[in-house]
């Protein structure tokens, strides 16, 4: 499920042009809306503002000043259609390895943008849609796509139903993985939230039910369950020596349960997700010829190949504690993959048990200044954390340990800057084709600014 730099320059150029158009549109929208203020702002005569910590301004009533006409007070009228958006731009540089595909040791392309529209269609029934575009270094640019688009009927607090293209819960943050303003790190821990899997794991097309329920004095349970199919863009996948004809997800099903404990700010939970994907490929002519010459396939072999991941099962346990200016989070995840192909002699069936975990702490140093860091670990095979198996040409290809630190400065409620550094040991998350001889120890530095409205 790795992304890659495409050899198809037309598609890349088209995606880049789309991203550029969306970037301009969002910038214009941001400038327009932030200068106009919040979409909630109404032309209501305002009372004198009071600074935080100061007493409220006394309310002067018409009765107290009978000689002065009472001011006309207009109640707020929420807009029928809510429009919100975000745009992030930045840069990154790696000290040694190509982080996002070939020739990507550094780039000024770290763009993500989205704009959404939502409205209350009827009582308890909401409809919304979000368009998203990105341009991340050499990672293949994605044309603007539907990030989510669904109907949401919340019948009761304990039962709601969504249908459409729906954000997929996984762990604490997968539903919010591209919302830079809603977190401290620029890159969420790569072990549990790999950036190259974003397009595959972010959303599904189908149904979900959700709700929350108080459990007496024992806190609250929050739950979601979903069934649908993944939407896998062809360009989201890393294929070399072949053409990807299609990537079909038979299904994706999952459930998530969080317990908001009686201790304020502490929640713990788990998510299970299971899917099945068939990748249909056509091998390149020279690859087919080489296979025939080597005797791996019959002379009549037409180059068609099906790679099936049946199933992929992802589980994650999560804990988060927010108290005052502090936020502590930790997650432990296992990704079980069983892969087989229609050419077992060439590509035998294999099973993989990836282990992923991290711990993160953030704190606010001042009202607009936040800092923090995390330590994130990815083992390709939980049974071989040291990389002793011969399939790892170097032991450090079997793991990646990432120590990261971030500084965030909020210029105002709609504009922020972030600076981040990563110190890596291992190369398991790197795109292998772009890094034939990677360095074990390397650093990654990122700068990003984001506006939201």
């Amino acid at each position: 499920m790795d992304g890659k730099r495409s050899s198809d320059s037309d598609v890349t150029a088209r995606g880049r042009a789309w991203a550029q158009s969306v970037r301009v549109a969002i910038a214009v929208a941001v400038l327009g809306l932030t200068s106009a203020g919040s979409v909630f702002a109404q032309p209501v005569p305002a009372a004198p503002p009071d600074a935080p910590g100061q007493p409220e301004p006394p309310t002067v009533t018409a009765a107290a000043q009978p000689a002065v006409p009472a001011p006309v007070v207009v109640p707020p009228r929420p807009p029928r259609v809510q429009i919100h958006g975000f745009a992030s731009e930045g840069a990154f540089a790696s000290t040694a390895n190509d982080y996002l595909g070939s020739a990507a040791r550094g780039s000024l392309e770290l763009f993500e943008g989205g704009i959404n529209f939502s409205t209350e269609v009827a009582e308890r029934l909401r409809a919304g849609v979000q368009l998203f575009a990105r341009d991340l270094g050499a990672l293949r640019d994605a044309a603007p796509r539907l990030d989510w688009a669904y109907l949401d009927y919340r019948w009761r607090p304990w039962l709601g139903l969504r249908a459409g293209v729906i954000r997929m819960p996984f762990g604490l943050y997968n539903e919010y993985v591209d919302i830079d303003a809603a977190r401290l790190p620029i890159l969420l821990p790569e072990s549990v939230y790999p950036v190259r899997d974003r397009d595959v794991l972010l959303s599904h097309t189908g149904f979900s039910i959700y709700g929350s329920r108080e459990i007496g004095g024992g806190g609250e349970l929050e739950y979601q369950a979903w069934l649908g199919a993944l939407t896998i863009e062809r360009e989201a996948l890393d294929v070399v020596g072949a053409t990807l004809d299609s990537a079909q997800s038979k299904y994706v099903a999952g459930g998530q349960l969080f317990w908001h404990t009686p201790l304020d700010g502490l929640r713990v939970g788990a998510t299970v997700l299971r899917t099945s994907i068939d990748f249909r490929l056509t091998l390149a002519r020279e690859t087919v010829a080489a296979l025939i010459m080597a005797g791996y396939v019959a002379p009549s072999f037409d180059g068609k190949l099906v790679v099936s991941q049946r199933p992929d099962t992802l589980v994650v346990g999560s804990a988060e504690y927010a108290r005052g200016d502090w936020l502590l989070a930790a997650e432990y995840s296992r990704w079980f993959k069983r892969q087989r192909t229609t050419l077992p002699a060439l590509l035998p069936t294999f099973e993989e048990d990836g282990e992923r975990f991290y711990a993160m702490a953030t704190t606010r140093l001042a009202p607009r200044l936040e800092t923090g860091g995390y330590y994130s670990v990815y083992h390709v095979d939980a049974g071989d954390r040291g990389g002793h198996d011969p399939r790892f040409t170097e032991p450090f290809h079997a793991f990646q340990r990432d120590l990261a630190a971030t500084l965030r400065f909020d210029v105002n409620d709609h504009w922020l800057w972030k600076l981040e550094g990563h110190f890596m040991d291992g190369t398991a998350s790197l795109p292998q084709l772009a890094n034939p001889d990677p360095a074990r120890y390397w650093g990654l530095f990122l700068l990003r600014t984001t506006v939201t409205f």
Partner: protein
Amino acid sequence: MARPGIHLLLTVCTAATLRAAADPIAATDGYKVVVNPGNPVTAVDRAFLREAYLRRATDWTGGEPIRPIDLATRFAVRERFAADVLRKTPAQLKRYWNQQIFSGKGVPPPEAESPAAAVAYVLGNPGAIAYVPIDADTGRAKVIGVR
């Protein structure tokens, strides 16, 4: 026979307790909660208020949709209400709404530019609920208790 000092202390404590029981808004941190005069509710607990303002509770007991309204961020009472009822700092609340907005799960309550505008909104919407500074004029809106 109790000494006068202790007797006086007991009297003061008892009076304070009775006053708090009779005047539930005395327990709030500088705000009072108002609803439409047609709303039969006389008091709500903080858990309900929290669910309503985080847009997780949908209806009043009678089935009327809950329509909470916030005050603009420049009002200090907003921060006190968020700490006392929502149990969130301003930064936590901002993060929560960013997550809700950009994942499509919901949008925050509308904001009133003044307590008077919040009261006007409550008077114009049967299911509305607002908090205003404790000394604000609430007009015909109904002040309810907070448990």
